[in-house]
């Protein structure tokens, strides 16, 4: 296997990986559990699961766009915008379910969401650094 192909494979495994979100969330959930009880830990994990759900939705739409739209820019753009709207709606629905229906603690839920998003930022930053290194 050439160096370039090896590099691409490394990037692919990093992209598929979840970075340091799970250990960070578990650590924070333990902290919230000790400070505020198990409901707070569940709320924090729910916030992290929201980011995982929207990330999964994005990956699924990206694969669909690659499979169906191919090299047609307009069709690709349709999938991209549709994905953005779906992510917004899913996030709104999950926030409403968490705060309204399940009556979860707001602070740990928002903390879990923000921490998972920060972990995602870090993963994307790492990925773009790898892309820059490997061309």
């Amino acid at each position, binding site marked *: 296997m050439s160096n370039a192909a090896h590099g691409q494979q490394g990037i692919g495994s990093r992209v598929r990986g979840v970075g340091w979100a799970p250990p960070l969330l578990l650590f924070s959930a333990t902290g919230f559990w000790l400070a505020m009880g198990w409901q707070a830990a569940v709320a924090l994990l729910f916030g992290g699961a929201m980011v995982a759900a929207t990330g999964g939705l994005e990956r699924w739409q990206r694969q669909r766009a690659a499979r169906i739209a191919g*090299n047609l*820019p307009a069709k*690709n*753009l349709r999938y991209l915008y549709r994905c953005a709207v779906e*992510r917004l709606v899913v996030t709104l629905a999950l*926030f409403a379910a968490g705060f309204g229906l399940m009556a979860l603690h707001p602070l740990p839920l928002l903390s879990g969401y923000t921490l998972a998003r920060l972990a995602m930022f870090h993963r994307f930053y790492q990925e773009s650094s790898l892309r820059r290194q490997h061309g």
Partner: protein
Amino acid sequence: MTEAQALLYIAGALMMGLGALGAAVGIGILGGRFLEGAARQPELIPMLRTQFFIVMGLVDAVPMIAVGLAMYVLFAVA
């Protein structure tokens, strides 16, 4: 409804609305750049598509957090 409650609802609506506005502008610019790039170099569309999806996730992160805060204000505080 008290005046304080009404102000909280307005605050929640502003957070959600301005967050959506920011995300809309960001994703619109991103889409325009995607089309520009695709028109210049059609062979790069697969790479551009991946980059677009990734950057879209970054662009809508902060507005989504604003939406979460707005939900908190609407459901828990007000």
